[in-house]
């Protein structure tokens, strides 16, 4: 399999990324660094959660949040290029399989998420939170960014306009980011809400990332749940691209 579609998508996205990175990468770091200062130093200074300092608890949460925003964030650009500039037609009329287009876009989303995760881990060092780069943490981040990049591709292909995209972000993504274990343990939520949040993929990703970041044993259940989401979102994205009438 030549995978020309994967290479084409990545060529386009990485060329654009290289051109925009100088502006986009620093901009993507502003809000996680503010959270680190405001919550980690200010609000949570001296506090400890689950037996570690709040700052050490918060850093993996911010890594998960920021990489989610970057990986899922490809949806908006995909949407604009599809509806407004019709650039996506170029992929649809090329002799490549829908699978290749989806895989290429997902890899691009993963790349964006992993860059931001790496930068926050570096920034955390400056805040005195050491992280031992472990293969388990890398694996957790790969799976996490895959899940949300695939969700981003699926949404960009399924929604019919920008408003639909914005609604999903406001009603699902943002609450999930705030309540999904990034800033505090999900168990502190009222039981019904905690249960609802646990049905979303992020809490499982955060647990995996935090456990591997802190060197604690990771629960394979979270791995399994995340793998199911990964497969589901990828299949959904594939289905959406197959039936899209651009």
């Amino acid at each position, binding site marked *: 399999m030549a995978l020309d579609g994967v290479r084409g998508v990545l*060529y*386009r996205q990485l*060329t654009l990324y290289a051109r925009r990175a100088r502006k986009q990468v620093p901009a993507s770091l502003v809000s996680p660094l503010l959270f680190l200062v405001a919550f980690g130093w200010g609000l949570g200074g001296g506090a400890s959660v689950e037996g570690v300092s709040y700052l050490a608890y918060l850093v993996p949460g911010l890594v998960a949040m920021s990489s989610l925003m970057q990986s899922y964030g490809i949806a908006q650009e995909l949407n604009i290029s599809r509806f407004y500039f019709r650039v996506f037609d170029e992929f649809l009329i090329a*002799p490549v399989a829908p699978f290749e287009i989806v895989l290429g876009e997902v890899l691009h989303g993963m790349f964006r998420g992993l860059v931001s995760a790496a930068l926050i881990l570096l920034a955390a060092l400056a805040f005195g939170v050491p992280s031992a780069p472990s293969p388990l943490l890398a694996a957790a981040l790969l799976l996490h960014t895959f899940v949300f990049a695939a969700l981003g591709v699926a949404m960009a292909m399924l929604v019919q306009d920008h408003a639909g995209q914005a609604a999903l972000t406001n009603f699902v993504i943002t609450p999930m980011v705030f309540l999904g274990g990034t800033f505090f343990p999900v168990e502190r939520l009222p039981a019904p809400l905690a249960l609802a949040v646990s049905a979303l993929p992020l809490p499982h990703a955060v647990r995996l990332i935090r456990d591997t970041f802190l060197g604690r044993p990771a629960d394979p259940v979270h791995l399994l749940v995340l793998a199911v989401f990964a497969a589901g979102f990828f299949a959904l994205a594939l289905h959406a691209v197959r039936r899209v009438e651009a």
Partner: protein
Amino acid sequence: MSAAPPDVAVTPLLVVEGLGKSYGSVLAVRDLSFSLRAGEFVGLLGPNGAGKTTTIRMLTGLARPSAGAIRYDGRDFARAPRMAKRNIGVVHQVTNLDRDLTARENLTLHAILHGIGGRERAARVAEALRFAGLEDESDRAVRTFSGGMGRRLVVVRALLHRPKLLFLDEPTVGLDPQIRRDLWQLLLRVNQASGTAILLTTHYIEEAERLCGRVLILDRGGLVAEGAPETLKRTVGRFVVETVRDDRIENSFHETRGDAVARLGSCTATCKVREATLEDVFLKLTGRRIERGA
């Protein structure tokens, strides 16, 4: 209905049979059948909303037909889309270039998607830029291009993988007359120099008459006439006498210039003789005009 036995030597590039597309209760294209041979320059002529764009989108895999079959080189398009997509190039009505990429990068992307790599890729991209007259602008972001430059770039991009058949959907809409003529020259060169077959949609009479060896006239989603422009015009009479009455124009059609001039002699109002156009053919068939405000 019985089909003629297939002759392998002259299998048409494209055969369309009973093609239809409905959106809900709206029938955009109905029972469209035609075929296209290698090297032909065919026009799909009709007013806005006749179903031209929908037809092109179905033929290029961007819309799913509700009925009928599309065959490229005798193979069913729905079953073997990748094979067909290698042999077709598409220029959409909207210039769908990546505005933040340069001309060279837009072409490179197309080459990658078609599996053209290495030295061959660089050579074809350079050749395409030269053919489009964009060598000096090759490393500028496309967002800085004029409409005409963008159109030339999408045409050479669609040709980069050397398709046997090029589709163009209203390629000159919104272009200045001079740029339109430049693009016509480019298309004629493509058709004649490399033998690339072209299927072009247009609602400009002059465009269809100047470029196309054969015209399919489409109205309200259906084919109403098909043939060479000259042949079609002969069906209405080659010469027209226009008589202006109040604010209406009445046409009478005549076989020869002599007949028309004789008719002119008996004219009491303001009259003039002109040659028939495809607009007259359309008007006679449908009672309406193709070009808005014409």
